[in-house]
């Protein structure tokens, strides 16, 4: 394969989007759907065929110069190495399935063209982020992803709630993007280049304090897109969008962008122990926070949103613990099973005619086994039941954190284990609430299109078997992904005993979670009254209210001060004062204009006299 064909990977979705944008009105809906799916499937194919090019140092292709201004040289450069290739394959592959699912999901709804155009654009923007070798190009894709997510979350914009959810997602991520932009500008100032590979190569030469600050800036930037503390509030609200969008945003693309960025720039941030510790801490705390929130959610999609946040937290922990492989491993398995969970949830909601309350759904196991079994597979992966993909990837992260051998990371590892327990608890809670039949079920089942069913199967298989991607040596695997991405881990290899012990503990924890959910929810379909703590968790630790009082409230007060006092009183008062004095002066002046000829003539005579006196005085 020619190396020049790499540009096809991002270009195909863009072409699909453009074609549908221009011609979507003129051809039937079937064509639009086929074009959109074909574009992404083509990108998948291209990524798969071009896989050999990613070996070794990877392939770098300069397409054309973009900005040229003195020292600022920003070429359109794509860098296709193993990391990018893995990510691109995952993004395109999962997106293809989501697109196919979307054709069924949007079966009778309006505005299909807009939906598929935005979906394709989304994939294009994400692939730009993945393949860019240039921080500015990466930022372009990064913002493109943000814009598409805004437009897609607010897809049903006619309802105020959805539109404001989209706005919130956009604004919150924008706040974090400012930090990313600052980091990029600073890096340019320090190294004189924007190329990621060049920056990574120069990383050891930078001062340690600077690198720490840069790492923190990048962390904040990544937190916004990946919905980590304290930028996590947009993600649960983002559930306002259509379910395929939730799957696309929460599984394959947007939220993993932050993790990917940190992996991409890992040689830089790994220079700073403080930065790494901060990343690990943010990840772990978010994981714990989101898991507690997920435990009490009643809305099925919100529950999944919080679980996503929690799993992304694990990935941050992995990056912080120094294992890019662990982060990518979890990113891949998570993408599979989370897309699966969302798509299954979409099926459930569809079957129940739009009902999202977990306590009103039920009887799925009997009514639609074709949705239930994939859902169960996804839940098993999420809960980290042994031998599923989620088990291995989560274990690898906890192990890497533990193996750092210092107190801080071991505490984080313990918190991670606690989160694993909570994860198992809420995952099985979902199954026990949705699976068994109960009184007052929504009776008449809707028919599910076949595309919403068969797309679940490959994802379920990938999710369950995802562990094979990087099966640790202890389990008889060969750590394929580790071999691909190269041993970037900086810590020493842990003893195998630890590895097995940790696996055992994790298995016991997930089992405990299952037993708890069984004891608490099996056969008890009625919702219990939630206590104070429950409400607290349900509202996401009152994060929205905290932001309201801490950030928005003071901001509004300041705004009110400037608007009511400074603008309306001071500035407007000043303007009015000037206007009034002018007017008063004019009122005095107009008295001179009597309109009487006699007065004018007198004035003229006296004026003439004055002039003559002046002339006479001059001549003396």
């Amino acid at each position, binding site marked *: 394969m020619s190396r020049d064909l790499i540009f096809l990977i991002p270009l195909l979705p863009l072409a699909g989007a453009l074609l549908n944008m221009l011609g979507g009105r003129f051809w039937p809906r079937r064509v639009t759907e086929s074009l959109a799916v074909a574009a992404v499937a083509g990108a998948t194919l291209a990524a798969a065929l071009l896989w050999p090019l990613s070996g070794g140092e990877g392939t770098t292709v300069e397409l054309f110069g973009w900005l040229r201004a003195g020292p600022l040289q920003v070429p359109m450069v794509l860098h296709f190495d193993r990391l990018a290739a893995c990510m691109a394959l995952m993004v395109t592959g999962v997106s293809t399935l989501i697109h196919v699912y979307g054709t069924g999901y949007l079966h009778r709804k309006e505005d299909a063209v807009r939906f598929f155009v935005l979906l394709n654009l989304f994939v294009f923007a994400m692939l730009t982020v993945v393949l860019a070798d240039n921080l500015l190009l990466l930022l372009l894709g990064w913002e493109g992803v943000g814009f598409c997510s805004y437009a897609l979350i607010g897809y049903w914009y006619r309802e105020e709630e959805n539109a404001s959810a989209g706005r919130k997602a956009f604004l919150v991520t924008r706040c974090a993007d400012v930090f990313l932009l600052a980091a990029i500008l600073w890096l340019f100032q320090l190294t004189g280049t924007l190329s990621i590979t060049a920056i990574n190569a120069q990383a050891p030469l930078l001062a340690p304090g600077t690198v720490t600050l840069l790492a923190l800036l990048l962390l904040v930037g990544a937190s916004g897109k990946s919905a980590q503390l304290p930028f996590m509030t947009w993600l649960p609200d983002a559930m306002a969008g259509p379910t395929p969008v939730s799957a696309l945003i929460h599984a394959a693309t947007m939220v993993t962008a932050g993790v990917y960025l940190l992996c991409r720039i890992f040689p830089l941030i790994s220079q700073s122990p403080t930065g790494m510790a901060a990343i690990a801490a943010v990840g772990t705390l978010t994981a714990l926070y989101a898991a507690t929130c997920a435990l009490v959610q009643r809305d099925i999609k919100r529950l999944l949103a919080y679980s996503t946040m929690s799993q992304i937290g694990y990935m941050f922990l992995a990056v912080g613990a120094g294992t890019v492989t662990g982060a990518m491993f979890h990113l891949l398995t998570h993408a599979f099973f989370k897309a699966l969970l969302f798509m299954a949830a979409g099926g459930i909601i569809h079957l129940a005619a739009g009902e999202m309350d977990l306590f009103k759904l039920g009887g799925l196991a009997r009514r639609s086994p074709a949705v239930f079994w994939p859902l169960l597979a996804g839940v098993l992966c999420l809960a980290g039941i042994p031998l599923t993909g989620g088990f291995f990837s989560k274990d690898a992260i906890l192990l890497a954190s533990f193996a750092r051998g210092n107190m801080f990371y071991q505490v984080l590892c313990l918190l991670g284990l606690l989160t694993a327990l909570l994860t198992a608890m809420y995952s099985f809670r979902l199954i026990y609430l949705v699976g068994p039949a109960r009184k007052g079920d929504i009776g008449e089942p809707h028919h599910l299109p076949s595309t919403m069913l068969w797309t679940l199967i490959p994802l379920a298989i990938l999710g369950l078997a995802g562990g094979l991607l990087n099966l640790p040596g202890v389990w008889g695997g060969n750590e394929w992904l580790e071999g691909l991405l190269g041993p970037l881990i900086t810590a020493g290899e842990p003893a195998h005993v630890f590895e097995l012990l940790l696996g055992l503990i994790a298995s016991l924890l997930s089992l405990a979670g299952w037993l708890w959910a069984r004891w608490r929810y099996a056969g008890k379909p009625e919702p219990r009254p939630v206590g104070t703590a429950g409400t607290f968790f349900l509202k996401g630790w009152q994060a929205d209210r905290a932001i309201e009082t801490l950030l928005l409230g003071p901001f509004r007060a300041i705004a009110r001060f400037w608007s009511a006092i400074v603008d309306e009183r001071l500035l407007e008062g000043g303007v009015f004062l000037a206007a009034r004095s002018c007017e008063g002066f004019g009122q005095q*002046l*107009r*008295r*001179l*204009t*009597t*309109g*009487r*000829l*006699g007065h004018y*003539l*007198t004035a003229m*005579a006296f004026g003439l006299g004055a002039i003559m006196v002046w002339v006479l005085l001059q001549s003396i």
Partner: protein
Amino acid sequence: MIVPMGHILIVSTTLFFMGLGCILARRNLIMILIGIEIMINAAGLVLVGASALWRQADGQVFVLLLMGVTAAEVAIALAMVVYLYGFKRNLDIDNFDGMRG
């Protein structure tokens, strides 16, 4: 030159101030116009006198011009007087204060 220049100046200045006084003191529009004519002619007299003093024709040419202009001015002014009379039925200038601010 038979008449000394000083006398001419005295006469014309007197004429000028008489015209001015007429303008300022009278309320009738026609009288004001007459005052203006007197002032113009006073100025013309000085010009003729100066022309004779320095033996140059410029001043006399200028006076001819002045007469032409005055004739035109009087024609327009009288037309306006007629019009204004039709408007207000008298010519007291205090009645015409439509331009008052």
